């Protein structure tokens, strides 16, 4: 294959008109090689892959896809599968693949991995996918940015609501990034439906942007496009390790979730795939996770002995990721609704939300002690935080089916269309934000 290619290159570069050259013979090469579909950057895949090849002599081919694209790829190629493993962060991605029957069970032989990290089980109870590292969401900031703009270092979600951070915060959307989804869900579970959404909207009012890729957030903080970002820990920790003037902390209300790996159904090399899992969970493999370019929390507690000073240890420091008891079933029951609500209320109406937030913040600063104005501001806040549906409705099965990709059975009852609901929500939300802005402006002029 290689040789053929080089011939091609020379021909095309040298004489681009030589059409006949395309007929060069093609050789089939079938080497024993492990093919892994992964959402991880080369910093992780190359480092781990090299360590694995060194330890076992098995060659690895990493196929980088965004988590969502990876799922689509495995679904589309299932009929003629050429991939051995799927390796990514978000447990929900694995749930989707499991639901489609695209994964294969595996029993781990390595000992010493606990049942849970924080409040979350490390492995899939049904045995389809295994956690190999833990990660949690937190707040990352650019120290130069904060210094230049004279901003304090935030240390809780509530801090991000403060007017001082207006226009300085960045985050991805739950529909774009599985891990962002977990953060949104965690706060909703921790604070309750109404309060949780109110908190997200107050934070979102301070957004500079909602990034379309989850890496867009650390990228924006690293380069100083915005000062503060809501990110998964390894983005913050590895950015810091790469020399950027940034720092990271876990706020109290966060969830630690395992990052996972699984064997694809009908994998060409299931044996090699098993070896990869064993290696990843071995003390040797776990230690690779501490590499400055990777910086993920190992799931083997013993590995932390080798971690650098100040490295968070969720097995010792119980404050990390244990404040919320994460309910996976609840999360699953309303997964798509949360994505859709967040996009309708925040991502696609960010300008309206920001305008309302600015008006409210201005009014609040102006009218301290003015009871009448404060009353109007309260009304405005209530309007902003309004959610079009209740928590009960969000978990209703029939309602969720409207937002589902595939109806499992032809008999599943569905009435109404997603677009219909989103359109109704959008109209309501837009009017609410506009009204809130009006009220706040009125309050400011009192």
């Amino acid at each position, binding site marked *: 294959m290689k040789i053929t*290619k*080089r011939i091609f*290159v020379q021909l*095309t*570069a040298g004489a*681009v*008109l030589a*059409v006949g050259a*395309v007929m060069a013979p093609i050789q089939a090469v079938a080497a024993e090689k492990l093919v892994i579909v992964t959402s991880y*950057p*080369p*910093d*992780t895949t190359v480092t781990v892959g090299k360590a694995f090849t060194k330890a076992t002599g098995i060659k690895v*081919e*990493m*196929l*980088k*896809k965004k988590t969502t*694209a990876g*799922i689509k*790829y495995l679904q*589309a*190629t299932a009929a*003629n599968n050429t991939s051995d493993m799927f390796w990514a962060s*978000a447990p929900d991605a694995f749930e*989707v693949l499991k639901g489609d029957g695209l994964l294969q069970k595996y029993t781990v032989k390595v000992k010493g991995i606990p049942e849970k990290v924080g409040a979350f089980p490390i492995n899939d109870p049904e045995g389809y996918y295994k956690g190999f590292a833990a990660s949690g969401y937190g707040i990352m900031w*650019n120290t*130069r*940015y904060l210094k230049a703009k004279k901003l304090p270092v935030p240390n809780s979600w509530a801090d991000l609501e403060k007017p001082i951070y207006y226009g300085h915060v960045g985050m991805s959307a739950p*529909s774009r990034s*599985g891990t962002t989804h977990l953060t949104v869900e965690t706060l909703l579970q921790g604070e309750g439906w109404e309060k949780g959404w109110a908190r997200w909207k107050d934070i979102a009012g301070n957004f500079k942007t*909602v990034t*379309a890729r989850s*890496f*867009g957030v650390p*990228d924006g903080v*690293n*380069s*100083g*496009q915005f000062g503060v970002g809501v990110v998964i820990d390894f983005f913050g920790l*590895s950015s810091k390790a*790469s*020399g*950027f*003037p940034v720092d990271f902390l876990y706020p109290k209300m966060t969830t630690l979730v395992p990052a996972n790996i699984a064997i694809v159904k009908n994998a060409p090399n299931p044996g090699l795939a098993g070896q990869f899992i064993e290696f990843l969970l071995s003390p040797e493999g776990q230690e690779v996770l501490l590499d400055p*370019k990777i910086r993920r929390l190992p799931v083997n507690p013993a590995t932390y002995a080798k971690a650098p000073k100040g490295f968070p240890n969720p097995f010792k420091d119980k404050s990390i990721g244990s404040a919320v008891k994460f309910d996976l079933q609840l999360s699953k029951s309303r997964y*798509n609704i949360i*994505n859709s609500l967040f*996009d309708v209320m925040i*991502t*696609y109406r960010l300008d309206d939300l920001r305008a309302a937030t600015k008006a409210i913040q201005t009014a609040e600063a102006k009218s301290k002690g003015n009871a009448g104005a404060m009353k109007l501001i309260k009304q405005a806040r209530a309007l902003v935080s309004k959610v079009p549906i209740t928590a009960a409705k969000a978990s209703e099965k029939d309602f969720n089916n409207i*937002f*589902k990709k*595939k109806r499992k059975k032809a008999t599943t009852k*569905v009435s109404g*269309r*997603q*677009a*219909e609901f989103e359109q109704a929500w*959008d109209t309501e939300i837009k009017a609410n934000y506009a009204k809130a802005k009006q009220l706040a402006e009125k309050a400011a002029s009192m």
Partner: protein
Amino acid sequence: MNSFSRSQWGAGGLALLIGLFLFVFLIVPVVKVVYVAFQDPNTGALTLINFVDFFNTSLFRESFLNSIYVAGGAVLLASLISIPLAYFTTRFNFGGAVLIQTLGIVPLIMPPFVGAVAMLLLFGENGSVNLLIDEWFGFTIPFMEGLNGVILVEAIHYFPFILINLSAALLNIDSAMEESAQNLGASGTRLFRRIVFPLAMPGYVAGASLVFLKVFDDLGTPLLLNINNMLAPQAYLRISSIGISDPMGYVISVILVVFSLFSLWVSFLALKNKDYATVQKGGGGLMKRDLRPWEKIGCYAVIILILLMVLSPHIGLALLSFGTVWSYSVLPDAYTFVHYGNVFRTATQYISNTLLYAGLAALIDVVLGTAIAYIVWRTGLIGRKWLDYIAMGAVAVPGVVLGIGYLRTFVEFNVPIIDKPLSSWWVIIVIALVIRRLPYALRACMAGLQQVSIMLEEAAENLGATKTRTVRRIVVPLMSGGIMAGFIISFATASVELSATIMLVSAESDAPLAYGIYEFMQSAAGRGPGAALGIVAVLIVGIATYISHRVIKRREKELAPGVAVAAQGV
């Protein structure tokens, strides 16, 4: 008469083959995906309800208008950039004309998302320029904010479409036209406005319509600038989110296709009933004249200013590739060669893959483009226009849609000998690139052919040449400017294509450059190496383009010295 009908048969067979190719690799995959737009999400039955939903949703109406605004704005800004560049370099004797024409193409040789990264570092709210302005004057300029930021990045990225096509057209104008106008008393701007520009219209419209369509469909730039309220990002966001399978993404894809076809049709109408062909060829295009010293200074000033602006993504990328840490500061903290070392150790195969894929794709594209252009303009085949429409339709198909369509369509088709599904063989990437870049090559070939007067062919045939011989010896050489332009645009843009290829790469050893850069850019430590790879890409593709340009030019010189002039500077 006998030879005529035989040639019609030949053209017919060719048209049929091309039609089949387009059917299998464009229509079938797209239909497979687009079908979803016409399915009731609940029952699976065929319906138009999704389109009703689309037009009832204020977000989508807003996105639609935003997309039109951005595409229109980008065409305007791109025209402002490219018209002076094209005019100055084709009309005046300039030391650096070739350099400018080459540098002018360079912006295309960079994936738009990479350009956006670099431009954010330079022009973002806390980018170098704004940090300086803020320090000196205490305010900042929102270059990159909102829709106008998208316009800026898109115009800088896509203006070469206009530049290349317009230059080709200007060079093809018969100087006799200009002389006649001058004899009749026209000069200066009037000459340009009334004679030169109208004669170059096919080139300009070809370029401008490509810019409009590309910007209308472009995904990477708005996504990187986090603008969601436009059609292409809406489609992408909805198609690619986990779990949600809202048919709206597919509906938007259909609307993108339909609207793009509509604007193509408008550009056809604009050029209809006008004869742009000039009989004489080889007169050297427009008369070139020397500039007076102060004129020269003025021209250089304008050109340097424009080049500085259009090359700013490259300047930013170069700084990024040599910099250690660049964060909230005017320039990187320190400089290093580490990133380049990293790239040369690990990433050389991306480069050879890219040269292979893009070279093959561009080659096939100009062959197809020339054939289609000839069939459309010079034969009377029934339905010949449809070949053109369908091939051009590819420009309106978002890369993601084509990628998903290929995966769905070809996964079960096993290629004999290598025994792999076609969808995971590297050739599928080449085919995707051929389809994606065919419209560029086709437009350029069309513009080239439109300027060749049919009288020249008739003359050749009267002298006894067969159709095939006429095509080979008269038509192709005369439209070589257009073909060259088509090859260069296809090659350069194919080598930085990401949206379709990202779906189709099934083994890292098959991955092209843009994919490699994208991969690097997804981690904090990878920004430097990613930028270094980007610079290497720009250099290599630039050099390859230049070499192919030279090779073809030399060949032409051997064939017919006069014609070579026509290809100059393209």
